[in-house]
């Protein structure tokens, strides 16, 4: 890792206060020596550049408490501080638990007051009318870094309004994390969902059940949508119309529900219905689970726990392949919005651009948790990212390499093949997916009825948001 002091690279060589004093002194000297000819004086010392000094005041940012706590320390105390000094802006960053972001955002909107920049853990589609479109920022960054990744674009762009309602800051791939020794002992592979279905009973038998959540929390939402993709059970089509109960989507959804029901009955326990977002991490780190889908917070926590056996035995893999495809949601899609009522819009805009143009330290400091939405933000793109991930020294060496493959090939946005929008947002926020899967798993309803009920409800939600002009 590079030193903190090197990590902030100002793109327009901003002046510090002492630079300014020096140059002002030199200019005064030149004027006194050569007469009142500023162009000569400035010519002597070079033009005064105030580009970054046009910003002023305070920039208030709300973001989450990162799953890699050291990243927050660096962000607050080094990056933001240095950026603030370079731009003559006092940056204040507040961190809250990710589960409170939407309610806090709503409170700020209701009060029409709060932070200038607000970070959401998933695209805040329902806030579109309260935020500044950021098409110009996206365009500016794209001009310098090349195209934005598809997952980021489809998460933040509304094709109906033709606006980017949010600025993608980062995304996290969602790998499978598994205990190598347990899988070897049970003779189980995780290459396909069929392998998981067959192997679940063996893993439970050796005392290490599978950990796939069906609870009212975000990890379950992400996992279950991914499972649906793998079986071709898409909620909406490319035009963002609900197609869940139709043709191959219905068939795929029913199959996915059956597979999850079998995995639960043979290889899991009731705990998966009671989980919070942190529970699969805890159960894995306690040595109970044989596998879980999560961002790399599990394996990073294992490495920091001091339990070397656990850390070395925790391996990463792509999401299992289904009969239709191998594809999973991003685990986190970090999106910044600039409220219409933000007091320091200019500073907010510049902060976003500068951060993206200099994203490498964010990737490194987050321990490869934060992937850049513009792959070109790290020079060399995925090739460099792969090399960096491969150099991670934790055993087995190279285990993080697969993260790049997952990000490049197997990661998409919630709502695939359509866009992430207010419909998908409401489906997630009202826990419709865990509800459907858990009801089938517990035998409260059969898969076909569950798909029908889900489809009906999703169409109601679609009509509501269409009337609002947001889909």
């Amino acid at each position, binding site marked *: 890792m590079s030193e903190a002091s090197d990590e902030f690279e100002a793109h327009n060589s901003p002046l510090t206060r002492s630079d300014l004093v020096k140059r002002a002194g030199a200019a005064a000297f030149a004027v006194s020596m050569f007469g009142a000819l500023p162009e000569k004086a400035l010519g002597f010392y070079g033009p005064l550049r105030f580009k970054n000094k046009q910003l002023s005041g305070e920039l208030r940012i709300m973001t989450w408490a990162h799953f890699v706590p050291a990243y927050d320390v660096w962000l607050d105390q080094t990056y933001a501080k240095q950026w603030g000094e370079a731009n003559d802006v006092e940056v204040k960053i507040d961190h809250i638990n990710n589960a409170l972001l*939407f*309610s806090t*955002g*709503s409170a700020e*909107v*209701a009060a029409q007051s709060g932070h200038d920049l607000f970070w959401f853990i998933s695209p805040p*589609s*329902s*806030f*579109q*009318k*309260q*935020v500044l479109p950021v098409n110009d920022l996206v365009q500016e960054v794209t001009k310098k870094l090349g195209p934005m990744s598809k997952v980021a674009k489809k998460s933040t762009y509304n094709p109906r309004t033709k606006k980017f309602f949010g600025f993608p800051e980062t995304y996290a791939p969602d790998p499978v994390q598994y205990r190598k020794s347990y899988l070897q002992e049970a003779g189980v592979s995780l290459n396909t969902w069929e392998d998981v279905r067959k192997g679940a009973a063996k893993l439970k038998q050796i005392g290490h059940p599978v950990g796939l959540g*069906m*609870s*009212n*929390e975000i990890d379950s939402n992400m996992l279950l949508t991914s499972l649906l993709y793998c079986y071709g059970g898409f909620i909406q089509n490319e035009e963002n119309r609900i197609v869940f109960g139709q043709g191959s989507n219905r068939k795929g959804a029913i199959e996915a529900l059956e597979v999850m029901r079998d995995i639960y009955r043979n290889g899991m*326990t*009731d*705990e*998966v*219905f*009671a*989980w*919070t977002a942190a*529970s699969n991490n*805890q*159960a894995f780190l*306690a040595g*109970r689970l044989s596998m879980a889908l999560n961002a790399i917070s599990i394996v990073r926590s294992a490495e920091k726990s001091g339990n070397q056996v656990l850390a070395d035995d925790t391996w990463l893999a792509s999401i299992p392949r289904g009969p239709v495809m191998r594809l999973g949601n991003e685990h986190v899609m970090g999106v910044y919005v600039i409220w219409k009522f933000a007091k320091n819009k200019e500073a907010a805009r510049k902060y976003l651009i500068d951060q993206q143009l200099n994203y490498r330290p964010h990737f490194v400091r987050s321990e490869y948790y934060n992937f850049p939405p513009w792959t070109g933000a790290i020079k060399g793109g995925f090739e460099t990212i792969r090399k960096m991930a491969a150099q991670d020294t934790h055993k087995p060496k190279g285990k993080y390499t697969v993260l790049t493959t997952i990000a490049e090939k197997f990661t998409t946005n919630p709502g695939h093949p359509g866009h992430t929008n*207010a419909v998908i*947002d*409401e489906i997630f*926020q*009202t*826990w419709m997916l*865990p*509800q*459907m899967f*858990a*009801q089938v798993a*517990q*035998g*409260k309803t059969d898969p076909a009825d569950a798909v029908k*009920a889900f489809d009906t*409800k999703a169409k*109601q939600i679609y009509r*509501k948001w269409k*009337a*609002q002009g947001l889909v």
Partner: protein
Amino acid sequence: MEAESAAGGAPSTRRWRHALEDRRVLAPLLIAPAVIFIVLVVGLPFGWAIYLSLTDAIGGSLSGNWVGFDNFTNAWSDDNFQKALRNTLIFTFASQIIVVIGAAILSAFLVRDFRGRWIVRFLIVLPWAAPVVLSTITWLWILDSLYSVLNWTLDRLHLDNALVWLFDVTRFEEGAQVPLQWLGRPNLALAAITLVHAWRILPFAVVIFIAGRASIPNEVEDASKIDGATGLKKLWYVDLPLQLPIALVAVLFGIVFTAGDFAVVYILTAGGPFNSTQVLPTWAFQIGINSGSLGEGAAISLYLFPLLVVVTVAMLFFARRAQVS
């Protein structure tokens, strides 16, 4: 001038002083801060909620197009809303039954003089004094899927299987496994939430019951002793009838606290498993705040209003009766 000063100041000052001595002025003046405060923090948001419930307002705006009662009818036709309404009633009334029985027993015990009475009273009042969020998080850990201290204790005492046998858990909740996942099965989660609510409200009811018992005149106690009323008979024929008005106040407060509570369900289950433990406040929050359908969320929360109005009117009625007697 001197004459005016001697008479008590300028005419305008005198007029004010006289006005302040008039009850028609002084009374409204004294009560005005409280009224203004209530109007600002309760009246305005309530009025706003009614307005929002009749519009299609979404997150990020405080106004919307008029949709009449569509939000109410849409909410009513939703399965999850109906579950939330049912659960609100179950949690509220089931927990109050436990509270009343528990408070009657505990208050009878706690009015007696025994060593360590103050410590016991302190421990009983503690759940009420602790912030609800904090105490509910403690319960979350007690009922945790992995680290449940309750399951650990049952296991060490070899009571987990006995509990299943005793209460026939598998019939109570088909397919439930040992160790019991208290928050992973609908009926177990409903039971757990009801118990946490009862645990939380119980201290308040105990205090009220103790106060009620203290207000029973000694003559009545003496008369009942002479008549041979002891134990359960005394409780049933003497204590409970005399305590009834004040006990009802405790119950009605308990209903208001429980029906409007958000924290317990939100922290323990977030409405899960599969939205089977949602209550109106949490469902209104999910729809109105997290999903951004502000108007619909406001409508859901307003369904609580008729229930709470009835309870509040009854509460005021019984409080007045208790005061008079």
